[in-house]
C-alpha cells in the first residue's frame, strides 16, 4: 500500500503545477527518440529473451513521453 501512497504524492506534486512545459515549447520532446519505448514491439522482443535468462520482472515502464501531441 505504501508504494501507492508514494506514487499519489508524487502525482499531486506534479499536478500542482511545478515545471509546466507548454505544448508549443515541446519541439525537442516531439522527437520520437524522446519517447519511452517508441516502438513497444521491439521492447517486447528484447524482454522475450531477457525474461528467460534473468530472475527479475516488471518495473520496465511503458510507452510514454513525446510531445503529448494529439
Amino acid at each position, binding site marked *: 500500500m505504501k508504494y501507492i501512497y508514494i506514487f499519489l504524492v508524487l502525482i499531486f506534486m506534479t499536478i500542482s503545477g511545478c515545471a509546466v512545459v*507548454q*505544448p*508549443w515549447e*515541446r*519541439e525537442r520532446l*516531439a*522527437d520520437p527518440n524522446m519517447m519511452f519505448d517508441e516502438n513497444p514491439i521491439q521492447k517486447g522482443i528484447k524482454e522475450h529473451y531477457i525474461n528467460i535468462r534473468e530472475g527479475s520482472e516488471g518495473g520496465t515502464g511503458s510507452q510514454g513521453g513525446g510531445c503529448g*501531441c494529439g
Partner: protein
Amino acid sequence: MEIKKILIFIFIVIPIFAYSQDIGKEARQFSGKTESGEKINLSDYRGKVIILDFWASWCKPCKEEIPYLIELYNQYSDKGFSVLAVNVDKDIANLRKFLLDINKDVPYKIILDPEAKIPSDYNLDSMPSAFVIDKNGVVKYIHIGFLSGDKEKFKNEIETLLSE
C-alpha cells in the same frame, strides 16, 4: 476498501478536473503577420465560420491535420468558411520543409508566431489545437490534438455553423 477508494479517485474524480475549456465565449482578438509580411487580424474574419488552427512542423498529428484543413477549405470556402493558421515554429526552414513534405499548396493564411504569444494567450492544452469559431466570433468547439475521428466532427460542426 482502500484500494477501491483510490481507484474511484483515479478513474472518476481526477478526469473530471483534468479538463476545462472556455467554449461559448468570444475568441480573443489578436493580430499577426504572414511570411510575406501581410498583417492579419482575427476580426478580419468576422462574418465567416472559421477554424483557428495552432500548429508546428514538429507535431506529428499536424501532418494529418493540415492536408485535411486544406480539403475543408477547398470544400467550404465559397460558402463562408475559412481557416486561419498560427504556426509556432522557431525556425521558418522547418515550416517550409513541412509544406514541401505534405506536397500541397496551403490556400489559407498562416500567421508566423515563433514567440508563441497567441497560443499563450489562448492557453492551449496541446499541439495541434483547433478552435471552431462562428460568424459572430464566438468559440463554439475546441479540438485538442487531431485524431482520425475529428475529421467527421469538423465537417458536421462547419455545416451546423454555416447553416445558422
